[in-house]
């Protein structure tokens, strides 16, 4: 499961790591917004510089982040072909076997690639610099205003944090069941489709049974320790917005304004 790197927390000590999770989530949203404002070449140039410097300040490995684009390559090539066939505007760049290739087709594909790359960089940066628990606390706080329209903010956050807590346990369990089934002759790697489906079922059924068992026991344990959804409870981890956090949010808003202006000018 070492390949499961997307969305993994990396415990470094950086300015971004120390930011308040709420501020980080808001800034991430603002950056994602900015990406979708069509502000032309200059706009994307600015964004690439900003996002790259955020990644660098977080002390994350730039190569590692860019590498997570690889699975996307196939899709991009596919997109490029479609764009070449469909988009017929702008100057003709060159002709390939009597097929005219327009500049806009190339540029559109390039913009989409840049957007994807930036999105991955931003989200990776958020999850890599924020502990899952802090992330859920942040989400809980940001969803709190929605309580007016009956969004159960705390319950959602509790569900996310329990899900996160049990991911490693369930991975362990899956590996254990796989070994147990393999020792009974179930082959998950080879065989015909039908055998493979049978093999996967022999994995999923016991996993579900044990997960329900776990869920029941966990619910009992939580209730026994005084948990009751909907009741007021205090919170151990307190979040504190600092000067820098507000600054980052202001910066995010400004960036959007700049992008909007750019998109109107060009």
């Amino acid at each position, binding site marked *: 499961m070492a390949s499961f790197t997307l969305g993994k927390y990396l415990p470094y000590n950086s300015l971004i790591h120390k930011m308040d999770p709420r501020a980080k989530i808001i800034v991430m949203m603002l950056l994602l917004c900015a990406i979708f404002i069509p502000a032309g070449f200059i706009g994307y140039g600015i964004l690439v510089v900003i996002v790259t410097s955020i990644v660098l300040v977080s002390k994350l490995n730039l190569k590692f982040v860019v590498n997570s684009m690889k699975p996307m390559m196939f899709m991009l090539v596919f997109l490029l072909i479609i764009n070449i066939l469909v988009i017929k505007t702008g100057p003709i760049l060159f002709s390939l076997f009597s097929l005219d290739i327009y500049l806009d087709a190339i540029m559109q594909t390039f913009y989409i690639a840049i957007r994807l790359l930036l999105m991955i960089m931003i989200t990776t940066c958020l999850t890599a610099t924020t*502990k*899952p*628990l802090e992330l859920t606390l942040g989400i809980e706080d940001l969803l709190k205003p929605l309580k007016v329209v009956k969004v159960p903010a705390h319950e959602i956050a509790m569900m996310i*944090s*329990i899900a*996160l*807590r049990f991911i*490693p*346990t369930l991975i*362990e369990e899956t590996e254990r069941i796989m070994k147990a089934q393999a020792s009974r002759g179930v082959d998950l790697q080879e065989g015909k489709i039908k055998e493979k489906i049978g093999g996967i079922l022999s994995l999923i059924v016991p996993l579900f049974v044990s997960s329900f*068992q*776990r869920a029941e*026991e*966990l619910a*009992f*344990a*939580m*209730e*026994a*320790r*005084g*948990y*009751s959804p909907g*009741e*007021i*409870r*205090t*919170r*151990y*981890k*307190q979040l504190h917005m600092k000067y820098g956090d507000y600054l980052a949010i202001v910066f995010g808003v400004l960036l959007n304004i700049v992008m909007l202006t750019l998109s109107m000018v060009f």
Partner: protein
Amino acid sequence: MKIIDAKNIDFSYDEITHAVKSVSFSVERGSYTTIIGHNGSGKSTIAKLLIGLLPCDSGSIHIDGLELSLSNLAKIRNKVGIVFQNPDNQFIGATVRDDIAFGLENHRIDSNLMDDIINEFAIKVNMFEYLDSEPTKLSGGQKQRVAIAGALAMNPEIIIFDESTSMLDPQGKNEINNFIQELHKEKDLTILSITHDIEEVCKSDNVIVMFEGKILMEGKPCDILNQTEKLVACNLDIPFAQKVVNELRLKGISISDNLTLESLVSEICLLSLKK
């Protein structure tokens, strides 16, 4: 003084599983009581009834003089802590620290006070160095110690252990058992332990034997554990020392009932001196 008083409690999961049948028992304040019985005899169900995780079909339960009812539930749960069998399925927090905090949060303890409480109980269960560890990095015994810390942090008067050592390796088992013994000695904590460990039963003040949802026997371990046929008939183990006594009697040697190896050994030594 009775701290737990259960009268004629009944519970069925559905039409066919009548798990607890008109069970009555009481537990003295500060005592160490064990419950034994075959798998499915209703021990866990009783534990869940006692802290109101399941509602009795009939009968009444009093904890420290308070009747267990929906309106008293929160108060009762302040008095009773429970540690379950599976170490993984009762670890709620992302780290040891967060897990101990979980109960404190539910009891609305001020967050400024939490760190001190967490540290105190982490030291108590010897998990201070592991405060920031995630559950996957801990052994079963360590996770159970965190569960005990979580229960202790609520300042309960009673702690129920529901086969809390049965999924641990022998070392973890010993560690937790010794810890429970120490805990019982130093505080006037009432302990109710559901167990399959017959040596633990020998050390307890009182033992309740469950069989098919009913209480079969109840009393001092020395009075219960020598009723070998009855215990064997309901699939229960008997202490090793008692087994030796039984075998010696079959050989025609007259010897009194012994629950611990030490007393058995000293009696055998005395016998050989007399010869």
